């Protein structure tokens, strides 16, 4: 509307602030880089430290929230984006945001070394670049499983067996990206008709749907429920903390999404944003990604991560992000109609 006025205004403020900083003298003229992220907070410190060691002129300022909230926040700000770069947020969200012309293309130095399926090859330069994958998995609480004499499920189909009735929790795709990732992967693997039939059967076994994608695994870790449909990273982490969990990658294949970044179209710190982008595709960065996640964008870097299901990378389905983004609302509506229709469980 009045971008000129605003930018002048902000420039004024920036100038004032710069002047203040200079007069202070002690503070070095570092660039503050505003990074919106959904990466879990405990990892952010080490990313900041590692990056700033390589780029001492840049000071990362995180705005961290869960994927849903950060995406909503970004969308709400779309008329006047505040972030310089969106980093470590689901690729699905970045696709949604790029529909609103949120990003500017940039090919980070060395992006070609990444696996092609992990970054935006439709646009050149790419609007978004993936960092690492988070992968659907089943968290199985062995203690509670034994208590209820449940066999360990090995496949998605296992979960529809009557023995698991009331013992399974999964995220509601209408409120969780992980939930959508599951539904989308089932449809991509089985085709629409079979996938819905599968979900109908699964629905009778589901105790309830959660709002957050990590919650099912957290609940399983606490023994609130024996089986939680969640993602592998969360399961491995809980197991590392001491939870009696088994993390299972079902045999049929698993859905996945990427943590990815994109540079916001109107950033005033383009140089710093590009610096972070460049750094994020380096081997060093990928090695850090690998500390918690088994699958990273740069091939050949990843080492097995403790308590991740072995061989999970080979089970990752061929995920069509564009298709998923295009069909998202239709699938969500259908899902809501089928399973979210009434308060009382149908079973």
């Amino acid at each position, binding site marked *: 509307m009045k971008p000129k006025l605003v930018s002048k205004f902000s420039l004024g403020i920036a100038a004032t602030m710069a002047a203040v900083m200079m007069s202070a003298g002690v503070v070095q003229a570092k660039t503050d880089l505003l990074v919106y992220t959904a990466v879990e907070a405990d990892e952010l410190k080490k990313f900041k430290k590692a990056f700033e060691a390589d780029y001492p002129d840049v000071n990362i300022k995180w705005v961290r*929230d869960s994927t849903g909230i950060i*995406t*909503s926040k970004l969308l709400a700000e779309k008329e006047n984006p505040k972030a310089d770069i969106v980093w470590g947020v689901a690729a699905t969200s970045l696709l949604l945001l790029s529909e609103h012309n949120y990003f500017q293309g940039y090919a980070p130095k060395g992006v070609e070394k990444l696996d092609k399926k992990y970054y935006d090859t439709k646009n050149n330069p790419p609007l978004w670049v993936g960092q690492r994958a988070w992968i659907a998995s089943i968290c199985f609480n062995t203690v509670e499983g034994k208590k209820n004499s449940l066999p360990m499920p090995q496949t998605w189909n296992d979960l529809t067996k009557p023995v698991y009735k009331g013992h399974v929790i999964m995220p509601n795709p209408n409120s969780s990206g992980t939930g959508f990732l599951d539904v989308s992967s089932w449809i991509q693997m089985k085709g629409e008709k079979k996938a819905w039939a599968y979900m109908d059967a699964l629905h009778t076994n589901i105790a*309830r749907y959660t709002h957050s994608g990590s919650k099912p695994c*957290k609940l399983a*870790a*606490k023994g609130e429920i024996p089986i939680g449909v969640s993602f592998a990273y969360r399961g491995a982490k809980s197991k590392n903390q001491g939870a009696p969990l088994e993390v299972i990658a079902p045999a049929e294949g698993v859905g996945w999404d990427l943590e990815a970044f994109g540079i916001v179209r109107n950033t005033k710190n383009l140089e710093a944003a590009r610096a972070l982008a460049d750094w994020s595709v380096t081997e060093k960065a990928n090695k850090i990604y690998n500390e918690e996640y088994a699958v990273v964008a740069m091939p050949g870097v990843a080492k097995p991560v403790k308590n991740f299901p072995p061989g999970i990378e080979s089970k990752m389905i061929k995920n069509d992000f564009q298709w998923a983004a295009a069909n998202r609302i239709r699938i969500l509506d259908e899902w809501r109609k089928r399973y979210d229709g009434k308060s009382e469980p149908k079973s």
Partner: protein
Amino acid sequence: MTDSAATTTAPASAPTIKPKVSSEDWIMRAVLVGIALYLIVSILLPLYAILSKSFKDVDGAFVGVANYAKFFSTPALFWSIQNSLTVTLICCVIVVPVAFLYAYALTRTCMPFKGFFKGVALIPILMPSLLPAIALVYLFGNQGLIKSWLFGYEIYGPIGIVMGESFYVFPHVLTILLISMANSDARLYEASTALGASRIKTFFTVTLPSVRYGLVSAFFVCFTLVITDFGVPKVVGGKYNVLATDIYKQVIGRQDFEMGAVVSMVLLLPAVLAFAADRVVQRKQVALLSARAVPFQPQRNPATDGLMFAFCGVVGFILISILGVAAFASFAKFWPYDLSLVLNHYNFDLMDGGGWDSYFNSIELAAWTAVIGTALVFTGAYLVEKSNGFLAGRAGLQLLCMVPMAVPGLVLGLAYVFFFNAPGNPLGFLYHTMPILVICTVTHFYTVAHLTAVTALKQMDAEFEAVSASLKVPFYRTFFRITVPVCLPAILDISMYLFVNAMTTVSAVVFLYSPDTSLASVAILNMDDAGDIAPAAAMGMMIVITAAAVRLLHAILTRGILARTQAWRKR
């Protein structure tokens, strides 16, 4: 000497007298308009920015009621209305009577340990919403300590929502009832006793009518708080959908702001109806208390006192256990498999989420909110209640003061993003700063604070202002010398209320904080996200301890002030 009424011929059409507006009245009106403008900017315009989306499609084109048509043809959304009303009404039916009896015990009996019970009742306010949620799950979840008490029913669903919400709204309802009961007229009780009325009859003929206003307000507050809260149903709602979680699903899950706006509008309706009902009842309210009223001093009555002590004991025990379980959660190593108690969850600088910085940011936010909010709220309430003429302006401000309550925090937070971050908004410089957090928090909790102030002001003699005017004392002098000191307990209550809520609130500020203004309550959310439930509980306990410390300070302050001026409160 007899002269009949002086009768000169009346002019055919005498002009209507237009009261002259004094300079003081102009000052009052200017301040009143100022506060109204604040509320317009901080609630009405942002609300418009988001709710207007309910008539637009995703590209911002006007689509009329199409979104509403979609809402009402989607059973999943439609059912939520019934669910919301059901749990909300059950909650009110439970909480209002319980809080009423509790308030009755605190004000009208000689039950022992009143101060203790008063403090205990405020526990829920001190707790960030995650703590009671954790406690409920630890108590009644599938691994719960006393799961069997539910007789096989599940905590996840309406039972959990009602339990959680009842816990959450109890102190809010109690506060309003306490204030409306605090200054009752002893003479009514004396009269009733003199007439030989039994205690029960006195209760129905004196006590109940005198707190009618408070009861209606309490019900209104309970209803609106419960129906708009999404924290509790999000954690223990299970498959039971309510409107507030639907908004969450629409906005956070699907990023469908348009449908989120529709649900918000639907959610506003019952809140508006409750408000209208409240107004109608209040119109019939006449001032029952005058300055002649003699403060009521409860008489000893072993049976009643004992009964009330037992009742408060049970309620207090429930409140304390929930806090206790939350505290336990912050020490337990890995619930439920390793229950050894450790301290290391309190080492926040090792944790994520901003560590101690966010804790101090929260304190700063809470302090500003308390100071600015209290000044704003009390001045506003004073002008609504006590200024002269300007009826339209006063009614308008009163209405504005009621709006924030009906707005779920989530909607408020997003509305602020839309409004304050809009390109060209001259207030855009506030975005991502501490002031916007303060504005948002003050506004978010404005209504209950306002109702508290109004209740306190209503109990002041209506003629103080008239007397001051006759003595040619400017109103502001009387305001500072008389009104403020007399209402000081209520003012401290308001500031306390704002402080504590600012410490614990999440839903609105989660959209507004910046890296430099990260908050403890948001850090809790983040830690919980990261699966660090125990540290989240620990940070929650830090907030509880801080809030409790401030509360204690408040109690000491209040006691000090009362002691200093005790003379005028004693008979």
